[in-house]
């Protein structure tokens, strides 16, 4: 009766992994016959910052995840180049009928970098470690991902999604959940849920997080001894030079890394990263600014465009200005914005106008939503109908930041500002530094209109919609409108629906209502981030989740 999607995956087994790697190989395309690539060499990859720590469980920053993706693996991995869940350290899995018990068959013969065997016991050790987090580590600043995904801890202060993990034999575990959620098991593909060596975790006091002053201090494990099963091993972190060195794991269970050494080097300034590549100091870097794409390609570098897995929106706060609680006014705003023009002028090739609050690769996406094609006249008419010709609102935009969905906030703000002023809305622009008041003010509901977006973590609608609207006390202030609670309820119901078809229907309905009835924000665009590598680099597969693995990468001299 119940058809659960992951069961399909279970059929794939070991061979799937092999096929997948083969896919990854062929996807890079242009190096054709040179299959496998050259072994050896060192690759230096420029990143925007140095990792904060190396234990992905406590991490929230991109540079840490970028490194941990090479050192660690989870039970589930995302298929290279997609956001689809695929076998990782678990060869297969299946759920019970009620979706509450998940049985994972683990890969055999896998060893952690310190020689510890990866088995059912080690896997449950990790689950229990997460669940039993105590003390300072319970802060949302440390274990934010656990709290987003699994809720509370073993102390029971807040309900948890996780119930237990049991090793049923040496290589099989049963993970029990307290309720069904559409997010599971896909969330296990997040780098946060990487499998770490129990021996090393204990030896280096991995759980010993301390709060000190207004920040947190992490134990030796997290700063110097990350131990996983991945294709690369942690070699050293040269703080003075901002570079992390990884070396090939000779005992890797799968396709061994081709590079001898992989170096992630922090170059915070984007222009400096580009020049370092041009001068040959580095072999590639993350997130080249869209304005540089063409010149990088012209110089013969390989620009790898990731599939867009994000959304950029103009938020409409329901809290302060009563006129914004009138659907007509929100629709007027939607009609007033020339989204097509904005995508053309401001966003890189591959960017798309957003019709839903998440990209079309995610479950439950539908094109049967109400369209708001650029129509200033209609916008004016709607404002007049609502008696809001004199609408005056503040409009927040961030400085000192670029995000993959928002490569140039100043220009994008200027564009939308022009659109809205054209239909007679009076705007009071407020600009604040991203980390110097912008996020804070927006979260506190001070903004009437604001620019923000979201980078997807994994392929479920709840990762987008749930984060935005599941709690009516959100930055859109939907709780101030009568439909805010309804929307939250609908989202929770959809997330806990076990049946795939029913759930799809529910999400499609929510998407339609979001555009036609609620409209707490105007989705603007999905914009693809990119990576760039030198001509002699091959085998890197761009991922929509920006979690590329470098074991397939080779570099020719």
């Amino acid at each position, binding site marked *: 009766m119940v058809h659960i999607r992951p069961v399909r995956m279970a059929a794939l087994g070991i061979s799937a992994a092999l096929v997948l790697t083969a896919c990854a190989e062929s996807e890079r395309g242009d190096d054709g016959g040179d299959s496998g690539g050259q072994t050896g060499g060192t690759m230096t990859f420029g990143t925007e910052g140095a990792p904060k720590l190396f234990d992905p469980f406590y991490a929230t920053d991109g540079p840490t995840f970028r490194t941990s993706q090479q050192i660690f693996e989870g039970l589930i991995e995302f298929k290279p180049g997609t956001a689809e869940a695929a076998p990782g350290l678990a060869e297969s899995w299946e759920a019970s009928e009620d979706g509450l018990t998940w049985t994972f068959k683990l890969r055999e013969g896998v060893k952690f970098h310190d020689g510890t065997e990866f088995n059912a016991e080690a896997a449950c050790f990790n689950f229990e470690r997460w669940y039993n987090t105590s003390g300072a580590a319970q802060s949302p600043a440390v274990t934010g991902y656990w709290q987003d995904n699994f809720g509370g801890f073993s102390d029971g202060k807040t309900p948890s999604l996780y119930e237990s993990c049991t090793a049923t034999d040496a290589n099989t575990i049963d993970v029990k959940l307290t309720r069904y959620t559409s997010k599971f098991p896909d969330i296990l593909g997040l780098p946060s849920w990487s499998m770490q060596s129990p021996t090393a975790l204990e030896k280096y006091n991995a759980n010993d997080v301390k709060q000190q002053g207004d920040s947190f201090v992490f134990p030796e494990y997290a700063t110097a001894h990350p131990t996983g099963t991945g294709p690369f091993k942690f070699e050293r972190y040269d703080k003075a030079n901002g570079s992390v060195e990884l070396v090939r794991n000779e005992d890797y269970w799968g396709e061994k890394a081709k590079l001898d050494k992989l170096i992630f080097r922090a170059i915070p300034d984007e222009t400096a990263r580009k020049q370092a590549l041009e001068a040959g100091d580095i072999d590639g870097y993350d997130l080249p*600014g869209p304005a540089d794409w063409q010149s990088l390609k012209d110089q013969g570098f390989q620009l790898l465009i990731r599939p867009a897995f994000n959304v950029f929106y103009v938020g409409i706060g329901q809290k302060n200005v009563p006129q914004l609680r009138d659907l007509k006014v929100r629709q007027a705003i939607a009609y007033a914005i020339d989204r097509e023009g904005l995508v053309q*002028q401001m966003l890189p090739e591959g960017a798309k106008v957003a019709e839903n609050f998440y990209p079309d690769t995610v479950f439950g996406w539908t094109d049967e939503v109400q369209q708001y094609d650029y129509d200033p006249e209609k916008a004016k008419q709607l404002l007049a109908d609502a008696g809001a010709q004199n609408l005056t609102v503040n409009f927040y935009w961030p400085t000192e930041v670029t995000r993959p969905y928002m490569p140039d906030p100043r220009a994008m703000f200027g564009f939308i500002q022009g659109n809205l002023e054209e239909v007679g809305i009076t705007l009071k622009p407020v600009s*604040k530094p991203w980390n110097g008041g912008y996020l804070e003010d927006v979260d506190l509901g001070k903004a009437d209109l604001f620019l923000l977006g979201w980078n997807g973590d994994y392929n479920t609608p709840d990762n987008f919609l749930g984060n935005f609207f599941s709690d009516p006390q959100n930055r859109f202030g939907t709780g101030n409108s009568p439909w805010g609670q309804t929307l939250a309820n609908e989202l929770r119901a959809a997330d806990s629906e076990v049946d795939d078809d029913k759930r799809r229907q529910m999400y499609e309905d929510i998407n339609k209502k979001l555009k036609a009835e609620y409209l707490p924000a105007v989705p603007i665009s999905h914009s693809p981030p990119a990576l760039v590598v030198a001509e002699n680099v091959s085998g890197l597969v761009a991922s929509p989740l920006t979690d590329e693995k470098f074991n397939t990468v080779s570099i020719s001299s």
Partner: protein
Amino acid sequence: MSTRTDKIDALAEQTARSDSAGVSVAAAAWRRLRRNPVFLFGAAIVVAFVVLALLSPWLAQHDPTERMLGDQVSRARDQIPPPQEGHPLGGDQVGRDLLSRLLIGSQQTLMVGVLATLIGFTCGLVLGTLAGAIGGWVDTVVMRAVDVMLSIPGLLLAVSIGALFASPTQFTVILAVAMVQVPIFARLLRGSMLAQRHSDHVLAARALGVKQRAIVFRHMLPNSLGPVIVQSTLVLAISIIDAAALSFLGLGNPDDRIPEWGAMLGQAQSDIDSHPHLAYWPAACIIVVALGFTLMGESLREALDPKSRR
């Protein structure tokens, strides 16, 4: 006590000297200046800049805030409007006429320089006069504070102040740049007041029963003007450069509709690879103008310095 301090004190001492020597020093200075090519070169630049700023509304062909070439812009595809008919320098990052922005930008740039100098001077005047005229513990406290401010390098101070405002505007930028100059003016004015306190004409005025306030404003201040003018020309240049540096560090005025050279240069950094002219033009303007003010100021200083020979 730093090099800046020394320079300021030396400058302040000149007041006393020029005062005792009377008009002849000024006249001699002017005679020297008229024949000094460095001064003339600097002055010519400054005059040209001020005239440009005043006439720019009539010189600019287009509205510098209008994105008239917006349809030729694609940030994502690295396209900005090239030079074309009616737009000899093409457009900027969002399609506004670059030449018009450079022309009109001279106004804001001049304003940044002048306002920063004025604010710096006014605050410095209040502090310096208080310290110099009252003396005693007021003097000690004010001068200690001034010493602390002087001990932090100028740009660093400006950047610190700039960063302390939650959301920067053109005014906070000017304020940040101006605050750097406050201690310099304060020290300068105090030094010059002290030097005059025991000079003949002040003593004479006091003997005649002239009120303290009148002595300060009618006699002491006007006599300090020479060094103040010298310092102001130098400060103008520094302010314009510091404002550009703030913008480069991302602490400038985020609203870029009204053009200003420093902000234009600071914002062009992300395009410097592919469209270097967006940076070169405002940079060239800033360099020329700053050089003009600096040359003028330095040669004024030298001319007023009785130690300089020839």
